[in-house]
């Protein structure tokens, strides 16, 4: 599967917005605690794991589960490529 370019925070938030149906585009949701992201529920982290795999990014699951915000997750995506 071709890897989706998620180096830019905007591209990452757009993917999250499109595929998880969350309104986080525009950067406003990036630093919120995940639980405070509008529409967030406990399944969204698992959805994000699947979504990142599908888009060609392999971030260790335990690191994703420890992330506090979407910006944290984006940092991990950049770190692991």
């Amino acid at each position, binding site marked *: 599967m071709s890897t989706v370019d998620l180096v830019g925070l905007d591209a990452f938030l757009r993917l999250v917005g499109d595929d998880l*149906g*969350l309104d986080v585009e525009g950067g406003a949701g990036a630093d919120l605690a995940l639980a405070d992201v509008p529409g967030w529920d*406990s399944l969204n982290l*698992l959805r994000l*794991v699947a979504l990142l795999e599908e888009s060609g990014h392999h971030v*260790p*699951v335990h690191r994703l589960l420890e992330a506090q915000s979407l910006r944290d997750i984006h940092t991990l995506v950049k770190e692991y490529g």
Partner: protein
Amino acid sequence: MTTGLDQLRDLRKRGLLEKAYDQVAGVLAQEGPGGARADTAAVGRLLAGLDPGAVLSHHPATPVVTVAVTGQSTVGQVLDPLRGELARHGLLLRAVLGEHGTYLRDLTDPAGELHTAAPDLTLCLLDAETVFEQVPGVWRPEDVEAAAADVLARCAALADAAPGTLVLNTLPLPWTYSRQLIDHRSRARLGAVWREFNARLLRLTERSPAPVVIDLDPLVAEGGPVTDPALARYAKVRLGAPLLAGYAREVAHLARALRGATRKCLVLDLDHTLWDGVLAEEGPDGIAAAGTLRGEAFGAFQTCVRQLASQGVLLAVSSKNDPAEVARVLADHPDLVLREGDFVAVNANWDPKDGNLADIARRLDLGTDALVFADDSPAERAQVRHGLPEVAVVPLDGEPATHVARLLADGWFDVPSLTEEDRARNGQYRALGERRKLREGSGSHEEFLRALDVRLETGPPQPHEAARIAQLTLRTNQFNLAGGGLTEAAVAEVAADAGRQVLVARCSDRFGDNGLVGAALITEAAGQWHLDNLWISCRVLGRGVEHAFLAVLLSRARRHGLTAVGARHVPTARNHRARDLYPSCGFVARELPEPGEHGDGTSAYLHDLLVLPGIPGHICVTESGKAPR
């Protein structure tokens, strides 16, 4: 290419997803990569943000399926693919999710959230940990055997305690347990113990009609690992996404079947669908369904189709061909598995296929939403999708080796259980054709009815008829007076309830036995009967059977010393034909006790049993179980 998923994303961005929910099934039915499983989960993810209340305010008739989900591990992940799969069939998911690991309490606590949600389906997702959590830290196959026996006993008890139809699953055995035994003899023993446990779990469905057990083995065999080790370890997700996607598809088919939305007739194209080659161009010698590599693939598809037909799926043909030539090929081409007698209708002509499908449905007394259409030509499929969007379309392509899998992928004909009536259905529909010939040869409708020699037998059902009653009530749309139906478990509940009963009608005529064709659900209170619902199979309509059945019910009520019989007609999308049944049998419309509560157009009726309607003269009626209950 724009996929269905892209179109849904676009609708969501424009804030139109709730308003356009009635288009979602159509959008997802479009061909292209939209049918792949990963995409269905993505569709479900996208739809997760939907407000079901808003969908219903725009489209109040949207069928809602309430599904409670619980299990051994983190099982909420199944909701996305399930939501997507249900959306493909126009259904809307209302989900109730239990806490992880609390399935025993979830299923058995009558005051708990899962019970109070009154779900249609309760999914209890089990995995290998359900057994292994009871096994000591250092173990042998015997320890697993003992733990599995405990789990089995628990599952058997849950089957009766769970709300709605309980869905269990077989447990895949992870490689990582098997390989912890280093000798082959012990591994074999563990494998045998495990399979015996799964087999007993599957056999729970023979003991009680309540649970459904989904066999995960065929889904695992189809591909995808059972689990992702990291998600299993850190997030307690022990059933992986590909497996849950396959499982969700099965559950959606089950939900559809329990709503009675099972399709009844498979309409097939011929050239490049049932055989290799084009009859009109190459003649009978130029087509093949055996003898060549490609031909054998078509032969295998025909064999699969015949297997479906043996269980009551009606077969028909819609093909652009010369009818005489098609008749000749179906009669004597040496390659064919299917013959003319296997089809209840063969429409070979040059007319548009949507018109042909409508004609086939009309001749069989079916709605077009009972049809599945399989064709290799994208143009023909598009034409049918456009003209008859309610027909399910199976996209075959130029690779006949995939025809079988494509036909079976959507479980269009799945039912909770099969009855002898199902197996005999193709013969009954051929008898329908013979009746039509008799009608055409009779001078008047009355002469035809007299010549038909209709016999009707009514009375309480036999114990073995519960499955057939459930099926009749769930699959009857037109003569379903109050909407809804009874699952097999509900039929069993009625049988155990002193205040309620089911009475049934069986019908035959000179062309054959139609079996159980009518059912009435009756509540008795304060010296009156109330007909909670009445179902008559559309196969016997037009012969006065519905009037005869009702007349017998009324006379039975009077004989039992009752003072009146109440009834109601609740309009649905399909039962307008039955609207006048109660008035035509002498029932009088009455005010509903609380006007305004039934904004759905419900009509209530009462019959005072003073003047009973007559039984149509051409029908010979016998009654069983005459003694009062």
